[in-house]
């Protein structure tokens, strides 16, 4: 994904998050919401300015543009790649799997399953790397941090 596209995606996500914080704080009295309001005004002003500046740059570039060779840009390369081979999407899927399993089965099962899922899809086929390494790591985490240091990790049906 290009820098510009990333900027737009970030600004879209951040605007939604900030808008929610701003709107939710408006239910409070003036003295409770003034700080958030000021910050939101700064954020939204700068964001609108940034978007306008970006759009102006896009228009200028379009006017000056020489047609790019097909397949030369980073985006085209990404688009050509089937989505299930896109490593960044695999990582997102592994994280979502981790979160989903953690709330049902607890940290350790979620960690083991998503480790195997991610490692396998990133190209590892060696059973030692796929199974033995995560089992030893998680066993060490359990013994040292859960049993010895008494750290609380999300628990589920199995662990």
């Amino acid at each position, binding site marked *: *994904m290009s*820098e510009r596209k*990333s*900027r737009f995606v*970030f*600004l879209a*996500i*951040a605007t939604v*998050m*900030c808008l*929610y*914080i701003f709107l*939710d*704080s408006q239910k*409070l009295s003036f*003295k*409770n*919401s003034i*700080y*958030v309001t000021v*910050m*939101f005004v*700064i*954020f939204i002003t*700068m964001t609108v*300015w*940034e978007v306008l500046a970006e759009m102006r740059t896009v228009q200028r570039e379009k006017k000056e543009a020489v047609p790019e060779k097909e397949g030369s840009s980073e985006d085209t390369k990404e688009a050509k790649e089937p989505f299930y081979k896109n*490593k*960044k999407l695999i*990582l*997102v899927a*592994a*994280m979502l799997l*981790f*979160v989903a399993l*953690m*709330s049902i089965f607890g*940290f350790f099962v*979620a960690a083991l399953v*998503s*480790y195997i899922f*991610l*490692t396998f899809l*990133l*190209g*590892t086929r060696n059973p030692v*790397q796929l199974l033995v*390494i*995560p089992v030893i*790591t*998680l066993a060490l*985490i359990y013994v040292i*941090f859960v049993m*010895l*240091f008494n*750290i*609380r*990790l*999300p*628990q589920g049906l199995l662990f």
Partner: protein
Amino acid sequence: MTYLEIILESFKMLSSWEMLLWTAIGCLIGVWIGAIPGVSAVTALSVLLIPSTYLKPLTGIAFLTAIYCGSLMGGSISATLLNVPGTPGAVATCFDAFPMTKRGESHKALGLSLISSVVGCLISWILVLFLFRPITSIVLKFGPAEMLMVVIFALTMMGVAGVGMRKTLIGASFGMLLAAVGASTYGYTRANLNMAALIEGINSVPFIIGMFAVSELFFILEKGTIVEGGKIEKHSFRNTAKGVLSGFREYFRHILTSLRSAVVGMLIGLLPAAGSSVSSVVCYGLAQNSSKDPDSYGKGNPDGIVAAETANNAAEGGALAVLMAFGIPGSGAAAILMSCFIMLGMTPGPSLIRDNASFAYSVILVNILTGLMLLAVGFLFVLLCSGVVNVPVRILVPMVLIFTFFGASSVRGFTLEGVLMVIFGIVGYFYRKGGYPVLSLVLGFILGKMLEGNLIRTILLYSDDLGSLFSKPIVLILLGCTVLMFFWPRAKKAFSERKERKANNNN
């Protein structure tokens, strides 16, 4: 008892092999705990608090303070090798240490971090040793107005990021709005999605791990490697030791930055709730601001590592000095150390200095000793850990993912922290890829809560007579520093442009 007699008496209390051994063990535990993201020194201190009371009083306290000191250094190891700050204080270390790793200079960066941490620790404790009473008395002069000015002063540091005001303000205001989630200063909740777990706000651990570590995983997968251009350093003890020693040599070129960061870091450490994360970011900004080449910061400038690492370790000296002098714990770790003092029958506060001055000074001396031990222990740890960058990406990324989830979830044992970490990881990837400055976002998030609280308290206290704020000398000094910091980079740029123009005209 004269000051000299107290110091001599304190030295006598140190001469025990048992204390040296427990200090070394404490350093080792601290460095190890600090290197694991999310697991803070507070965890280790709270678990080892009771066992430490079975030791002799000074040995017990030396053991716990060594853990605390070691953890601050340990945080820089994962920050350097994986862009994962092991502790919030190591955030600013990531800015330059990880780019050095990407350049194939991880060993040198680790050496710089280690020596800077040790020097930061030593200088701050030496300052405390000689100026214990005067510097700790500064704290009592700090009310909400002074704290507000400290926060505003710290916020001016984000102006040095060099990416333009628009991007900087987007990052800072976004960070501040995220920090506003949860209870307001008056105790009303806002934007907590009606979740009880968010009433306390967004915890800094999932935020920092997400913004740095998880977003970095996307970049690593994108490039297929940590080290760019195939400049992977061979992992052998000899090679690593050579690299670390070259970092030590490099340090001496940045000694002035280190000395300044140690003093400023220690002074910030004196302030309650400021701590190592604020001190390291402020000193990083100061170093960048005073540099002849501020644009090289964030791209692997050793000066940035020296400033951040010296400051975060120096803050510890200030925080513990205030704890001993007034019984005010400025952080979670300091609160646990305070419990240890009390359990051992040495209640921190003015009575400790009056009745057990030699004990208080031996704690200071033992921390100087800890700083020296940290050099040896940290060196060994660095030798063992430095090979991480050579692990293949297909193993490294899943393994780091486990540890990031472990770090985030271990904060309170909730799944929510894991969810937040994933969200901030994805947002962080687009943020960093879009070229927005990480420094302003982190500063906004860390200082947001402090800014709102102190602003409201100041308004409540001085709303009737705002003019009296300007009769406070500390407020005026900090205001002057803030104005100077705000205009200094601009003035410097204008001067250099004028100089260049003149030179061009002459040619």
